[in-house]
């Protein structure tokens, strides 16, 4: 399985390892034992086992059109993409803290999160 040290991307989720946890984080409850790290309107979420990590969302200083999440990974666990075709390969996370930035895009009316 793919591993990384500091920077990775799975579909629209851009991941970087961080040293210091910022303020203004709110915990997100898992769904059926999984953290939905990147929600997809067609159900093709990017998920992580809730037993191995805690998921939080940044609530302050978030750039327009973005969601920034934080993962506190307690034991090695993978980020998986739930789609049967054109699946983004799973990526293994080592214990540590990570920031997950969900991609945004431009429209003349304003910035919005990339929807899939």
């Amino acid at each position, binding site marked *: 399985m*793919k*591993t*990384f*040290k*500091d*920077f*990775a*991307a*799975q*579909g*629209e989720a*851009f*991941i*970087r390892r961080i040293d210091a946890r910022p303020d203004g984080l709110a915990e997100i409850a898992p769904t059926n034992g999984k953290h939905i790290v990147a929600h997809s*309107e*067609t*159900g*093709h979420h990017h998920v992580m086992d809730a037993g191995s990590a805690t998921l939080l969302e940044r609530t302050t200083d*978030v*750039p327009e059109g*973005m969601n*920034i999440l934080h993962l506190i990974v307690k034991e090695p666990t993978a980020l998986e*993409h739930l*789609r*049967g*075709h*054109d*699946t*983004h*390969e*799973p*990526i293994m996370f080592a214990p540590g803290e990570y920031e997950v*930035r969900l*991609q*945004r*895009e*431009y*429209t*003349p009316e304003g*910035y919005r999160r*990339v*929807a*899939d």
Partner: protein
Amino acid sequence: MQKIEKLTKEQEEYLPVFRDEWLKVGLSTEAVDRDASTAAIKRLYAAGGCAEPDVLHFESPAQCILAINMLRNGEGSRANLGANLGANLGANLGANLRDNLGANLRDNLRDNLRDNLGANLWDNLGANLWDNLEANLKANLWDNLGDNLKYESTYFWGGMDANWLAWAEFAEKIGVQIEKHEHFHAYIDYAKTSGMGYFYEGIAFVSDRPETIKKDDETRLHCENGPAIRYRDGYSVYCWHGQNIPADWIENKSSLTAQTAITWENVEQRRAASEILGWDVILNELNARTINKDVDPEVGELLEVDIPDIGTERFLRVRCGTNRQFAIPVPPEMNTALQSQAWMVGLTPSDFQKPEVRT
């Protein structure tokens, strides 16, 4: 009882044959034999300890959902009939009937199969059937029904449940004792005779199977000149290599313009639209100019295009980890592909680093 550790040679040889039998069930486009289906539903209710239901057959899951909503709201029926059925429809038997088939069955199998054998069986049966049915047929139908109707959920997909049914049935064939097996067998019988089902106290709504299922050579739902899934009442789902798309893009091809394709909100549908039209056509029609092109196709190419009624816009045309091309609109002040990548994730170019892995 000792856990089963491995398969005999005969069992191993039988595995792919068994899998293909179930795949045939899951992808069947044969019209449902309503008498056989009704008998199976009655058996399923009885096995779950529920009173015998009235069984209503429909030509598609969309018709089932419309009927359920009409009856629930009392529309299109005499008031008292509506009220009666409305009360009954309050009790969705899904959870009740599903309990023995879901978690209980899984625990049962886990207790009796060695981990590696369980995983091996899942790889050989479940995963293969999963790709064909759950991830494709079920997911696309679920998505389309949800988009178009006041969605009514169901646990019962009939033959399309082949992925987990095959897994459990094979385990039983090699010696796992399944608790409450009557219930399990009744559901197998249902899956082999019926399409999707919506089960309520005293009444069951059952769909026919699709009339058409079309796939590409990677088993993704796909059809370039008609629906990828079509039921006998005309309810259809259009797909481009696994991605649900509006019917118009296939049935009325001239409705899909370069402008529609490139400005479509859902990024996967935007990609599908761009593939249907062809990237060359889009870039040509929108008079695309390259502003900056990175050597790495995963960083991409920054393009400027002219969109009628909107004006000049900039897009990053980029390859993702699955080797597909996407177009992401970026602000007009972007000057390089790398700067656009950084903006897309809310970082300055100096904070941005190319990911070590991109999938």
